[in-house]
């Protein structure tokens, strides 16, 4: 019975919905000249290939239009970026084909 439930659930819920994510193709680009415009464009261009190469769930470090590398954790990618770029902005993006929401304190909005 559990197997049947899992089969139904897997058909009913696409990956992006399961994570409450937005497919990358539906995420708007950033206007040229705005912060992270180059990095975001570079990430979107490479995301499909990175997923195909088995990097899903890892973290891409991008600076300008360059993919600097891929790390297992957000912490490791951020640390590398700090050491390499010394106070300059850089992007550390989880490798997925959809954009996940950032969740904080689910009880907070009700108290405001």
């Amino acid at each position, binding site marked *: 019975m559990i197997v049947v439930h899992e089969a139904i659930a897997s058909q009913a819920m696409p990956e992006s919905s399961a994570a409450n994510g937005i497919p990358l193709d539906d995420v708007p680009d950033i206007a040229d000249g705005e912060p992270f415009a180059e990095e975001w464009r570079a990430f979107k261009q490479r995301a499909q290939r990175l997923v195909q190469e088995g990097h899903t769930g890892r973290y891409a470090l991008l600076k300008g239009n360059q993919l600097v590398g891929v790390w297992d954790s*957000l912490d490791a990618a951020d640390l590398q970026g700090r050491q390499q770029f010394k106070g300059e902005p850089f992007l550390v993006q989880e490798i997925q084909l959809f954009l996940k929401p950032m969740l904080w304190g689910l*009880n907070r909005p009700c108290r405001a």
Partner: protein
Amino acid sequence: MPRLMFALSPDGLLLPAFLGLDAAAMQDLLSQGMPVPRPIQVQTQIDTGSLVTGVTPRLIRAIGAAPGGSARTLTAGGFAFVPFYRISFTLFDNVGASISRTSWLVTNLPQDLPDVDVLFGMDLVREHRLVIDGLGAYFSIDS
């Protein structure tokens, strides 16, 4: 292995902490002959609804943390690039047990909160044993 114990508050899993700059940032200041800000005592909360530890904007300003990487995400206000910071912290209970980290990745919360300055999320929970005893009205966290 330290085990910190706290009373279970009606408001949730509240625990006191000291927060400051991460060790690397402190070292940078020291090497430049600059004063290192003292850690600040704050009220924090363990919140399993948070994925990544969040710190209020006022506390980020108070400790003088500088942003590192940013990630694009979806927030209540729409798409946004969220910056990450590094802090150090010490959790402590009233019998002297403590858990410390010299570098912990956090992001800034969208706004200041009236009652707490830090929401420790699942990133902390995944690295510790958290026991919640509702009937006993306490919770504990092991390193």
